[in-house]
């Protein structure tokens, strides 16, 4: 017992000594922001892989810094040169010819050539490919490396979204020829070609990146970047305040605290990520387009933005609201109770003072579901339910655990899609009649409209901006007249950055704010 007591006492003393020593080491153990030329940025979750071909519309910060594709995107999300210095597309839209920059190298010093491009594209366009991005490359028929710096891609059918898809990172043949592009070890220890290289990754802790001086765009301005993984949003806020981290992805609930903190700046960027109320078109109640138009007038989107998103969002009146294509010139749905009454009455519905709209003795009655795990969607669902009830629709709200969702059994659902790039990537899946749920597709509401199908096809084959814009304007008109959804809001992505730091230039981001690190080579301390 004496030995035990002594042991415990000794342990306690050494603990205390260590704690004191820790305090002595750097003042508080939580000293102020980094003074060296690095940035520490926190997000919530550790990604499962840094392999760009395993991430679909889901560009993790590390992946975005480590890898570059043939092309990239500028602040307006227009396609610009990256690994390729220029390219041509044949007038039939079937042949693409890319010229690579001279002297490209991998992070391990090996040269990057057209063979790597061929290797990567062959692998992702293989029908048996397990790559998540394979869906974007189904039109690729063959890839040829003509010489070290030129590549020819031949398509089996025109696919205008291919250029955007080619912003996906190119992979090194010399490391993956044996194991294949989906090699899990490479996924967590990648060798890339981007402005930063990954030097250390600790699961659930952090990723350490170092500037790659041989980057084709010249050495990045920062020497290093740490991405740390802090799941709790309040903990991220405290770390920002204590200076343990410099910058972080934050929730709207933290925005006020960031605005009040000296030395921090709030960046609220638009995203292409929208939320809408999907209708199951198999349900007879949704048959009349006038009813769906009326519901689009019954929703107060400003109230949703202010009440649910705390102001950090935009009203959505269609799926292309933050896209450079397609919604200009199409009348936007406004919150207009008089219009609801007018449209419903014209369509033959009637209602008593307090009762719901009815037609032929049938009340307009349905339930709205959404993923119970997603707090924002649940809040949107609840407010929309209230708004629709006020407008005379007998609606109930019924959140479901993600796993319990059976798409064919739902009436309506708070759903989210959207891409800041070529619209086709996020329109054909949800709205083309060839993609209906029964056929195993992403058209979860089984929406079918020949005019929409035709416009989407025109968009896929359009080879110039005018034709593309015309196709998606026609698409937007068609879905405005026969709405598949009641459009709700666009989310914004919120990030805190140090006030004296020159960070990302504003740009419309992917969903969940992915794509923030697009110009990381230019970031620097003032």
């Amino acid at each position: 017992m004496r030995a035990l007591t002594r042991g415990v006492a000794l342990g306690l003393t050494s603990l205390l000594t260590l704690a004191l020593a820790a305090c002595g080491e750097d003042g508080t153990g939580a000293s102020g922001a980094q003074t060296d030329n690095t940035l520490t940025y926190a997000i919530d979750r550790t990604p499962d892989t840094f392999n760009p071909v395993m991430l679909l519309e889901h560009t993790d910060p590390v992946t975005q810094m480590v890898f570059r594709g043939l092309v990239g995107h500028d602040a307006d999300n227009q396609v610009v040169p990256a690994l390729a210095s220029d390219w041509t597309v044949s007038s039939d839209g079937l042949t693409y010819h890319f010229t690579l920059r001279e002297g490209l190298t991998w992070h391990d010093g090996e040269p990057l050539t057209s063979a790597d491009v061929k290797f990567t594209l062959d692998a992702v366009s293989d029908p048996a490919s397990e790559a998540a991005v394979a869906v974007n490359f189904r039109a690729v028929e063959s890839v040829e490396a003509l010489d070290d710096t030129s590549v020819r891609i031949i398509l089996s059918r025109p696919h205008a979204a291919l250029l955007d898809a080619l912003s996906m990172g190119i992979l090194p043949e010399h490391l993956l020829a044996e194991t294949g592009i989906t090699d899990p070890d490479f996924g967590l220890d990648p060798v890339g070609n981007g402005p930063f290289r990954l030097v250390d990754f600790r699961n659930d802790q952090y990723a350490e990146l170092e500037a790659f001086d041989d980057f084709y765009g010249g050495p990045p301005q920062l020497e290093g970047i740490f991405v740390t993984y802090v799941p709790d949003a309040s903990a991220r806020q405290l770390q920002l305040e204590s200076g343990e981290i410099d910058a972080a992805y934050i929730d709207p609930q933290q925005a006020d605290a960031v605005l009040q903190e000296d030395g921090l700046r709030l960046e609220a960027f638009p995203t292409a990520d929208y939320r809408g109320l999907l209708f199951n078109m198999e349900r007879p109640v949704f048959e009349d387009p006038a009813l769906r138009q009326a519901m689009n007038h019954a929703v107060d989107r400003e109230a949703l933005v202010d009440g649910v998103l705390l102001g950090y969002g935009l009203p959505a009146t269609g799926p292309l609201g933050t896209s450079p294509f397609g919604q200009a010139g199409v009348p936007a749905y406004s919150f207009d109770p008089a219009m609801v009454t007018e449209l419903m009455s014209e369509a033959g519905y009637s209602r008593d003072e307090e009762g719901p709209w009815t037609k032929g003795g049938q009340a307009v009655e349905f339930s709205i579901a959404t993923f119970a795990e997603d707090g924002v969607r649940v809040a949107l669902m609840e407010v929309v339910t209230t708004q629709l009830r006020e407008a005379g629709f007998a609606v109930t709200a019924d959140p479901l655990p993600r796993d319990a969702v059976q798409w064919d059994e739902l009436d309506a659902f708070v759903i989210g899609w959207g891409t800041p790039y070529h619209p086709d990537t996020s329109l054909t899946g949800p709205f083309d009649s060839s993609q209906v749920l029964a056929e195993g597709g992403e058209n979860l509401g089984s929406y079918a409209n020949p005019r929409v199908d035709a416009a989407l096809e025109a968009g896929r084959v359009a080879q110039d901006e005018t034709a593309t814009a015309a196709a998606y304007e026609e698409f937007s008109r068609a879905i405005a007249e026969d709405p598949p959804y009641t459009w709700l809001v666009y989310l914004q992505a919120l990030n805190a950055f140090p006030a004296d730091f020159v960070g990302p230039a504003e740009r419309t981001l992917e969903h969940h704010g992915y794509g923030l690190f697009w110009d990381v080579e230019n970031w620097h301390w003032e």
Partner: protein
Amino acid sequence: MSAGRFLLQRVTGALIVLIAVSTLVFGLLELAPGDPARSVLEARSGGRVPAEAAVAVQREAMGLSDPLPLRYLAWVTDALCGDLGTSHLTGRPVSGLLGPALVWTLVLALAATVLSVVGAIAVGLLAALTDSSMLRRGIEGTMFALGGMPGFVTALLLLYLFAGQLQLLPTGGVGRPGEALTAGSLVAHLALPAAALAFGHHFGVYVRLVQTGVERIRQAPHVESARARGLHPSTLTRRHLLRPGLVPFVTRLGVGTGGLLAGAYVIEVIFAWPGLGRLAIESARAEDYPVLTATVLVTAVYVLAANLAGELAASRLDPRVRLPPLQGEAVHGY
């Protein structure tokens, strides 16, 4: 019963529990709604709803279409050989993920256990032996409040006070990114999560057990007689009060380890601690079943081992623990 037989009996019992737990976990996961193939696809596309056709392909690739008994058998065989499977999400061996996470959780649990043992003995003894009823009531009141407070509230309070307001201690992680791990920085990073874990889970109960254990024995005849013999108070406390008085506490401590670990799940998320709990929560969220089953299995081994250690320690403190009570003779004193 000899110490060897006692040990053998307990280890056999633990093994049976382990087999039952693994079967149960595997069965429950099978019954759980949802489709891991769908989850993998969703994770890779940042939550995008996957097409049914893609889900079917993925199910096939993950071998989810094999019959359940076949999969269970394969899993048990592999687990016995030390292969805990491959993560659905990363495609890497589960053991590679689990190893570091287990070490970090052990470090955290050990620190929390040391804190709560030392703290509970000190405070419990003080409450039992003090002559000031005000002090005793103060301690009891505080412990009552602490006992009623959920662990995450304690955690957030500590975080707010020491990291937010005073900025004395770091709020999360096991060290500063990119810096070599030093003892000083580890202790600084351990301080808040360990304290939250120690004082947010069972601490009030522990203090109470020490206090009542010692108080009851204090009045026992052999202690009275030792006191009458003029034994030095510190020797009396150590030999006659503390040692037998701690038995209920030590036994409870072993059981409490399970609760401590459950608490660690939440604490690790709040303090960004890269341990087993965070891994389990992340893998449950992503339906990464191989990782989830392995974390549950490792947690079960850990809890069983802790219970065993608690029983062994208690049996060393008081040999009567490992003896079945004789007919007609009750075990007195506690």
